[in-house]
């Protein structure tokens, strides 16, 4: 049995280890175009900030792959023929499989603005090792950067740039920071925090046009509000989409919509082909683009490939992030009402969302640490706000001596 996995990201590698755990004798090959070894994309920012080096990005020691007899291949796959079970690589080589897992992850959305076609250099993403290398190449000669896109990757990039003393204009289309996840109060806490870190935050503004000089180097960005922002680089952080363009035009494409469409057991429409991670579109139409979900997909897809019955439904949403110095934990969904408290004068706040009858539906916590497992339990048990407030201290996860005082937060008051 030859298992082949396209994509050496967290979904692909987790699947490979799971396959090996259950099948000691199978041949397992993982193909990756971006890097020789699995890297943690989530830590790209720490390399750009000079707090880690490239080798530190590898979550596993290299010996682990040889010990588990997993073959790693550095190549870009360009074509799939499911009738002959063959893959073709960019260099012309080919490989046959018995069972295939597509775990190709995400690719950045292309820059949509007028002027991009005339700009040769200066528009950069922040998703891959290659993007990281470009930033490292550009930074020494860079004084001003425009970053566009009010999601998490945008803030991470902004933090890196500020770390190196670069002037940053941060364009966020919405009228407060990250309305998809945060209410205006929290949006304002974040906005003020960013400004204190020297970020020129422009809310409610977006790019109208990018401007390049005759040498095709980016020189400025014009916005819809009429700003002209001179810059040497533009960080385009306007979201990612499943990295499946190559699959759409191949001989035997699997059914694709936004991503590769999979059943609840991660099977695609092609025989012997599964998909997992950022590139998979679930039966609900969801594309989960999170580290944890990719890990979980990888594990379950491997079990499905091994013949186990798998029936995946996405769990209750949770995530965490760090926005400069502010840690952020979120669990669940919004509700018609919410309970909000802020530590006076501090970038610390809690918001507990609930139904009109008090049943808690979600949490949005800024500036202190929480064990999300408690939140998940309370939501699953359909607890009401008074119960949650009474037991809130249980879920605190701050460092010793550093526990945020719920009394000072005004909980109970």
């Amino acid at each position, binding site marked *: 049995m030859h298992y082949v996995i396209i994509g050496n990201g*967290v979904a692909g590698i987790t699947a490979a280890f799971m396959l090996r755990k259950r099948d000691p004798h199978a041949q397992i090959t993982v193909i990756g175009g971006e890097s020789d070894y699995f890297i*943690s994309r*989530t*830590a790209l920012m*720490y390399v*750009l900030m*000079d*707090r*880690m*080096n490239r080798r*530190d*990005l*590898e*979550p*596993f*020691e290299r*010996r682990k792959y040889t010990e588990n007899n997993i073959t790693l291949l550095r190549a870009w796959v360009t074509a799939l023929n499911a009738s002959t079970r063959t893959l073709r690589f960019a260099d012309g080589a080919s490989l046959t499989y018995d069972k295939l897992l597509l775990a190709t992850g995400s690719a950045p959305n292309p820059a949509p603005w007028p002027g991009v076609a005339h700009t040769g250099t200066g528009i950069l993403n922040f998703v891959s090792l290659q993007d990281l290398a470009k*930033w*490292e190449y550009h*930074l*020494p*000669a860079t004084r001003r950067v425009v970053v566009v896109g009010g999601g998490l990757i945008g803030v991470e990039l902004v933090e890196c740039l500020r770390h*190196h003393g670069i002037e940053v204009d941060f364009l966020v289309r919405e009228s407060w920071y990250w309305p998809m996840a945060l209410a205006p109060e929290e949006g304002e806490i974040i906005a003020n925090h960013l400004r204190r870190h020297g970020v020129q935050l422009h809310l409610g503004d977006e790019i109208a046009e990018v401007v390049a000089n005759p040498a095709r180097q980016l020189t400025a960005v014009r916005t819809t509000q009429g700003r002209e922002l001179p810059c040497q680089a533009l960080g385009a952080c306007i979201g990612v989409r499943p990295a499946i363009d190559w699959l759409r035009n191949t001989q035997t494409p699997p059914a694709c919509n936004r991503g590769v469409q999979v059943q609840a057991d991660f099977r695609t429409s092609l025989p012997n082909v599964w998909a997992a991670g950022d590139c998979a579109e679930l039966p609900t139409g969801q594309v989960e683009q999170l*580290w*944890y979900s990719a890990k979980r997909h990888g594990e379950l897809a491997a079990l499905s490939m091994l013949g186990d019955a798998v029936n995946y439904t996405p769990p209750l949403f949770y995530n*965490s*992030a*760090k926005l400069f*110095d502010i*840690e952020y*934990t979120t669990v669940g969904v919004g509700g018609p009402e919410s309970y909000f408290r802020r530590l006076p004068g501090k970038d610390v706040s809690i918001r507990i969302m609930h139904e009109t009858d008090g049943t808690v539906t979600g949490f949005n916590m800024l500036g202190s*640490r*929480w*064990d*999300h*497992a408690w939140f998940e339990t309370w939501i699953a048990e359909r607890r009401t706000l008074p119960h949650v407030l009474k037991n809130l201290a249980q879920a605190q*996860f701050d*460092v*010793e*001596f*550093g526990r945020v005082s719920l009394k000072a937060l005004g909980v109970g008051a």
Partner: protein
Amino acid sequence: MIRAGRAQALLHNVKNRGWAAWALAALFTAFYVALYFTEAFTPIAQALGLGSKWTLYGTLYTIAVTAGGIHVIRKYRHNRYQVIRTLVVIVVQCTFAYSIPLLLKFLHQPEYYFSYFWPLKFEYLTPSYLASVPLPFVLYSVVGSLVLVPLLAAFFGKRWYCSWVCGCGGLANTFGEPWRHLSDKSTTSWKIEKVTIHAVLIASVGLTVLLFFTYGANKSDPQLARFTGEFQSYYGLIVSSILSGVVGVGLYPLGGTRVWCRFACPMAALLGIVQKAGRFRIAVKKDMCISCGMCSKYCEMGIDVRSYAQANESFTRASCVGCGMCAEVCPRGVLNLVQIKRAGQ
């Protein structure tokens, strides 16, 4: 390295084993060789009115801990564990490890360091030393080394000593801050560490037993006495001078700050065994780790913290000194230093 500008480039060089780091390592090593094996610093100490070269060394050490400590407190001012811990380190160094022994000497008492215990301060549990100091010192040393230190470690982990009290750890966590990430994280290092540190522990326990035995035999066996004497002087030379001083601090800019603590300290070995059986844990929040690796990178003991965090395993490692830096640098708040209620949990 992406940063333009000379100061930043030099800083990167010093912190990442560049030529400047090698130069600094050579300088530290030369300093310790001169200190331990020559009298080069004696005239300087006398000119400064400090009496002996060891007092001069103690003064420099205290300055390094205090200055480095202030830097660390500023850097981690948002983290109360780090602030309080570092304050304690500075205060212990300035009092128990510096001014109190000086005061005792001035009062014609034994120059006793209340923050050091056997087997780190090996002579504090040797028969000849115990016979030479007043009874309160004997009691403090025996009870401290054999009861107090291990008992606290069983409850709080070895951190209460290694990261809060000990001068070696104190210097590492203050002055050594720029180099903490240089520790080697490979499983090979882990294997080597287990062999070397326990070898030193066996040597120190063995030597202590031998000393009492020889003392009891009361020189009736000159061959045994000679053997014990030689053993003790080799132990002093290799462990106390070369490993803890010259190598321990000399390697800061190349191998990270806790080379001595990790590979050779008999106290760390002993407390590590207690810690493994005790209540201290690094708690891992379930399914929240993004495998970024900051925790492993900044672990001065070379523990691959990420390997536990990404596997959702709360853990204790014998070597963990509980400095708390993994929890500090983790961008997702995954880790926490805790005492579990009952052992075995």
